[in-house]
């Protein structure tokens, strides 16, 4: 019987509407309980500190083959940037933008995070994803297989066979021990196999003759047909190009008319990820500008959509995405090294290093676009903090992103370093925004909101009795916030305490314990579907490089599972 009481902190729990009240949080056997349920607890004094649920990251690339390609082809990302082994941790840590699995787990824990959703799992390589999940300490992980360029999906949706597509989707979630439906550049990554791309959401995919718009709508229908915890998670077409806000608005409008159907408290039918990369105006790099206002006006007015930021952190980082054609395009812009891979019937991927420099106008405009998303958000429960790690910057910069959102002075300080400050101000609205977010809003954007959008808010992202005892305590006094924004960043970088599953995991910013981590996946029961079984058999016989028997994840690859069950047969 392990009991713990976190006494007298300022508690921020948006899932319960608690806004900085001084409260005690009680823990018993890994769960949050009523304080009356404790007999002789160990006490943590949180007087003058901020108490939140453990952080939940809705979109981050931390495990799997393309992350590992990034690690392998960027030894310079580790050179002189890797700390010697921390005396309190079990394993060595290394890497900056693509950290080792060990450093990933430790650094998330140090920031007070407990759950990270791997944003893109190539289904064929799911064993690699799960092996790295096992090797990433402390944090619970889920991983989303990619569907937007999958031959099965394209064929079923082309014929408008939602029920068959749903049966295939359920099969693939089980085969990969996946969590939800990720869609990357729908149709475009398949077109990349032909050396092409989909120019807009109505540009049909070669051979399959289905448009990105039809793929997205079909997947939303599939997702709601199954009633999955999370919604369709979309990296929409035309990422990173001037003028792409038009495509983004068109993609967002695809969700119109759909309502969420699920038992998990999720209220959106579409999550549009790393919105920063999709909110650009202009028609060239010369007149590149922010159109965040247009996009966020739409997001604010539509309750069935959630978004995350994809904030540019102005670092040297490593871009990696299943958007194969985009990475080729990026390499032709910066002439750095490029890795490219085709994943058979499923997806593609590319990796290119990138330097977001405060001396480059496009980069500083991108920085402003990202922050405008957070600052224009009317509902922080639907707008989440991410850096699309490591694409716009490493996740270890979340504390800095939080600080920029909370402090106009911090933004001004950063803007002083811009070479093209005037042009950045002209091309964006960042200088006209005085809004400073508070701790409650930060709690919405970093734990309560993402947990709700992922459909896991009964377990993660809050502090109600019965939930996992994942609690982060930050050395920040909401009644006496530091005037120096650097102190906010410091507090969020290294939490005073992290309790994970009731275990004191981080103390004074150092990892002191490595409690068991979990793999969270979604098991969907669907009626027997002979046609889909036959289609799977046929495609494996004719087109895959592996046999069907060797494709599904073997049990030994799955580490400490937490299964979320969905039954569509009832």
């Amino acid at each position, binding site marked *: 019987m392990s009991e713990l009481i976190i006494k007298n902190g300022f508690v921020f729990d948006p899932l319960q509407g608690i806004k900085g009240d001084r409260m005690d949080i009680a823990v018993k056997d890994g769960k949050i309980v009523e304080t009356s349920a404790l007999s002789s607890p160990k006490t943590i004094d949180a007087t003058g500190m901020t108490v939140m649920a453990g952080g939940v990251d809705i979109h981050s690339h931390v495990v799997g083959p393309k992350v590992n390609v990034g690690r392998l*082809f*960027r*030894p*310079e*990302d580790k*050179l002189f940037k890797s700390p010697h082994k921390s005396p309190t941790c079990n394993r060595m840590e290394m890497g900056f933008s693509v950290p080792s699995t060990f450093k990933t787990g430790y650094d998330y824990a140090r920031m007070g995070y407990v759950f990270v959703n791997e944003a893109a799992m190539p289904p064929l390589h799911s064993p690699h994803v799960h092996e790295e999940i096992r090797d990433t300490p402390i944090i619970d992980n889920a991983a989303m297989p990619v569907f937007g360029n999958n031959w099965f999906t394209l064929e079923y949706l082309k014929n408008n066979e939602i029920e068959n597509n749903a049966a295939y989707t359920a099969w693939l979630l089980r085969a990969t021990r996946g969590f939800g439906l990720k869609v990357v550049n729908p149709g475009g990554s398949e077109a990349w196999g032909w050396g092409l791309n989909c120019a807009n959401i109505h540009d049909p995919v070669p051979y399959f003759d289905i448009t990105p718009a039809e793929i997205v709508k079909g997947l939303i229908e599939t997702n709601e047909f199954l009633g999955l915890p999370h919604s369709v998670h979309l990296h929409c077409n035309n990422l990173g190009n001037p003028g792409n806000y038009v495509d983004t608005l068109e993609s967002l409008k695809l969700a119109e008319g759909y309502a969420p159907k699920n038992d998990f408290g999720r209220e959106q039918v579409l999550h549009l990820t790393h919105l920063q990369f999709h909110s650009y105006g202009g028609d060239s790099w010369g007149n590149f500008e922010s159109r965040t206002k247009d996009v966020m006006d739409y997001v604010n007015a539509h309750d069935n959509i959630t978004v995350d930021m994809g904030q540019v952190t102005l670092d040297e980082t490593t871009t990696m995405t299943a958007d194969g054609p985009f990475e080729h395009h990026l390499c032709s812009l910066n*002439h750095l*090294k490029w890795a490219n891979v085709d994943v058979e019937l499923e997806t593609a991927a590319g990796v290119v290093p990138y330097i977001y420099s405060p001396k480059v106008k496009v980069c500083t405009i991108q920085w402003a676009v990202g922050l405008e998303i957070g600052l224009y958000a009317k509902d922080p429960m639907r707008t989440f903090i991410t850096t699309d790690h490591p694409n716009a910057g490493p996740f270890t910069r979340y504390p800095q992103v939080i600080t920029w959102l909370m402090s106009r002075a911090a933004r001004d300080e950063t803007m002083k370093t811009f070479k093209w400050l005037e042009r950045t101000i002209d091309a964006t609205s960042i200088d006209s925004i005085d809004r400073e977010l508070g701790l409650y809003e930060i709690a919405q954007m970093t734990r309560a909101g993402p947990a709700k959008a992922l459909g896991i808010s009964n377990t993660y992202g809050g502090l109600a009795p019965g939930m996992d005892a994942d609690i982060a305590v930050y050395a920040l006094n909401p009644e006496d916030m530091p005037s120096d924004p650097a102190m906010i960043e410091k507090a969020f970088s290294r939490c005073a305490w992290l309790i994970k599953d009731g275990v004191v995991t981080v103390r004074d910013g150092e990892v002191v314990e490595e409690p068991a981590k979990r793999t969270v996946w979604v098991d969907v029961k669907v009626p027997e579907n002979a046609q889909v079984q036959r289609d799977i058999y046929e495609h494996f016989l004719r087109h895959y490089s592996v046999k069907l028997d060797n494709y599904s994840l073997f049990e030994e690859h799955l580490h400490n599972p937490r299964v979320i069950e969905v039954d569509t047969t009832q």
Partner: protein
Amino acid sequence: MKTVTLTLTNPSELFIEGQNITPDNFAGRKAAEIAALDVWEGKQKSPLGKYFTVEGDGGATAEETKIVLRGDCTRVKRIGQQMTAGEIVIEGNADMYIGGWMKGGKIHVKGNVDSFCGIGMEGGELIVDGNAAHHLGSSPRGEWRGMQGGVIRVAGNAGNDTATFINGGTIVIGGDADIHISTHGEGGTVIVKGNAKGRVGGQMVKGDIYVYGTIENPLPGFSMVDEVEQEVDGETARFAHYIGDLGERHPTSKGKTVYANLYTKL
């Protein structure tokens, strides 16, 4: 200038990682404090004094500190790594990474050095009286930002992959160079006074290479454009002038395409 003399009296069984042997680290330290600095033999950390006897104190700054290494340093790596000023004299041979990521000051090796010497160099001078092995003045693995500045002079021969991704600075090789010179180069100068084996200037965008002797297997991506007279390393000579690598992208400057230049002595 104060001189610290390190004499290798108790040679290591494995190789020593000696990145602490720099004027920057010795400056402001007494002999006994220098002897207490860390070096690694394999994964074991030991004080420098376990292997070397230390005589003399460091100067007030790196600039005022000279280090002399005596004894057989064939198994000592990373001497002068990341140094910014001051002087190092190695009386015999030394191992890998000598003068790696050097920013300033001077290193003089009287014997031979192994691979990766002067990699990622930004400034200063690295003089080797004997031969250098591979990756001389090259970029560190994976890194596309190679040598930025400074001078490397090797009196003898150099191995493979000299000056990969060179961006600036000068490398002079008195003898022959093996394959791969200035691969992916975008600036800087490499002078080979002997012969070059082959793959000279592959994927080179910008920068200069001089070969006084022969190139056994020249690349087809270089095309001869004219003959020129030039002063190179203090002497004037006539060269055949090639541009390339024509298979690579090239920037434009003032309306003209910029190529890498390869000169072979006539």
